[in-house]
């Protein structure tokens, strides 16, 4: 049987997280199909993903904003033709997949980090302080995939078959509007380097120092919950158990204490640097390189030296 991946579209483009979900799908056995539901979608980039055998395109107004209700209606008759239906564990996937699973009477499996067998998966629980290996007894499996745990599938060189399917009707929920953070920086969850700031920065203005550092390093910016709650930066920068999961090559935590909820979102980074004036701060327990210093001195020095 084949495996269906639900693609996430950002401004018409396939989100990077979807490519990681495709890689997880290739480990399940069977052909990988990709569902592309949106409005005025271009199937060519999806068909170019070598790991994908078939692209299903549902183009319609109802799918313009990826609302869960019409997407679920679209997926419900498709799902039984597959052994697994999966999406990345992003806001999109977490909003959609449980809704679908419930209507299929399936216990979904959230945020898998490894495929052990077609019915057995590893997933973090308790903010990643424990890893559970779970086996599903449902015939059909509905999964979300932690993007940082699977490499991105190649995006070019393939030539998948394209099949058009009818879009769903609009559901009861109405899209009113959105305010998306505009940034020229790399996307937080796929950036090679992330510089993240916490409450220690003390305000929105000092965060500009992090911006300068990020500029020099070509990095994305992240933040702790405390920095977001205090209004220093927008919500979409929050890294952690209940924010975004990142695993860059280099994560620089500045003025972040290292609460377990924050560490849950960045501890799989390859190299971790912590700058904190409190040498007892728990962040130093996960840092490869710790600098005990006042960030207001260390940051300008670091920016200057780069």
């Amino acid at each position, binding site marked *: 049987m084949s495996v269906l991946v639900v693609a996430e579209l950002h401004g018409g483009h396939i989100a990077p997280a979807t490519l990681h979900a495709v890689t997880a799908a290739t480990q399940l056995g069977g052909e990988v199909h990709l569902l592309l539901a949106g409005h005025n979608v271009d199937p060519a980039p999806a068909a170019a993903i070598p790991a994908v055998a078939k692209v299903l395109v549902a183009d319609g107004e109802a799918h313009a904003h990826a609302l869960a209700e019409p997407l679920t209606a679209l997926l419900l008759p498709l799902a039984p033709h597959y052994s697994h239906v999966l999406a990345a564990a992003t806001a999109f996937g977490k909003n959609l997949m449980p809704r679908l699973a419930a209507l299929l009477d399936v*216990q979904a499996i959230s945020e898998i980090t490894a495929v052990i067998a077609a019915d057995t998966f590893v997933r973090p629980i308790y903010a990643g302080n424990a890893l559970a290996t779970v086996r599903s007894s449902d015939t059909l499996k509905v999964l979300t995939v932690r993007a940082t745990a699977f490499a991105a599938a190649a995006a070019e060189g393939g030539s998948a078959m394209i099949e058009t399917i009818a879009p769903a009707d609009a559901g009861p929920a109405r899209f009113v509007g959105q305010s998306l953070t505009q940034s020229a920086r790399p996307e937080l969850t796929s950036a090679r380097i992330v510089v993240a700031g916490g409450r220690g920065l003390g305000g929105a203005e000092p965060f500009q120092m992090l911006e300068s550092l990020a500029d020099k390093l070509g990095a994305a910016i992240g933040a702790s919950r405390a920095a977001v709650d205090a209004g220093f930066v927008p919500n979409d920068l929050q890294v952690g158990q209940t924010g975004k999961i990142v695993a860059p090559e*280099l994560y620089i935590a500045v003025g972040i204490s290292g609460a377990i909820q924050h560490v849950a979102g960045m501890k799989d980074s390859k190299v971790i640097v912590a700058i904190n004036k409190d040498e007892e701060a728990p962040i130093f327990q996960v840092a490869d390189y710790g600098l005990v210093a006042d960030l207001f001195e260390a940051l300008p020095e670091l920016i200057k030296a780069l």
Partner: protein
Amino acid sequence: MKVLVAVKRVVDYNVRIRVKADGSGVETADVKFSANPFDEIAVEEAVRLKEAGKATEVIAVSIGPAQAQDTLRAALGIGADRAILVRTDAEIQPLAVAKILKAVAERESPDLILLGKQAIDDDSSQVGPMLAALLNRPQGTFASKLTIEDGAAVVVREVDGGLETLSLPLPAVVTTDLRLNEPRFISLPNMMKAKKKPMETLTPADLGVDPSPRLTTLKVEEPAKRKAGIKVASVAELLDKLKTEAGVIR
């Protein structure tokens, strides 16, 4: 407008989790439990709707062991009017939770159901959308702002790129994110009042739900520990290490 709020009793977020030596789960004996933080936010939001004259009654519901009564008392202390405990000592997975909550919702006919976006023990983030699906209601997940106007819930959602606003005709299901509100401190007089508020106890069987798990946990392990790092003495040394030792910047 009647509001139903789902509250889970979980290991307190400050507890350092220890995995059991036999790999069967995490240690829960002698650890502090509290209401799931996202659910406290949900209760606070419901009570604020009542205080603003939008809601008429707030009902808190929890599925779990007898001790979940304490969690429900805390919800009553924040200002919920009454509580329902669906008592069971068995492991209840998100799909079963959603089925039980559906049965409760069918008895109570709430106009709005509030849940947390995620339980911080299983980190599933499933029940809200599952419940919305089973009840065939629209959903607004990860809410950082909620207003009730003209028979609709207007929900500002925290999504990966920023914020998104949806309008959901009531009845609807909404899950809370961290920025929705800051739950109040429960005063002693309110805690005393909470003791006198009604609490009903049911079982999954009373509600006609089969809560058997679909997932078997084969083992629970500790994640790999990171190698201990070093302290550097200066920015210059840090940069040197990053360039030559770690090779992550040029």
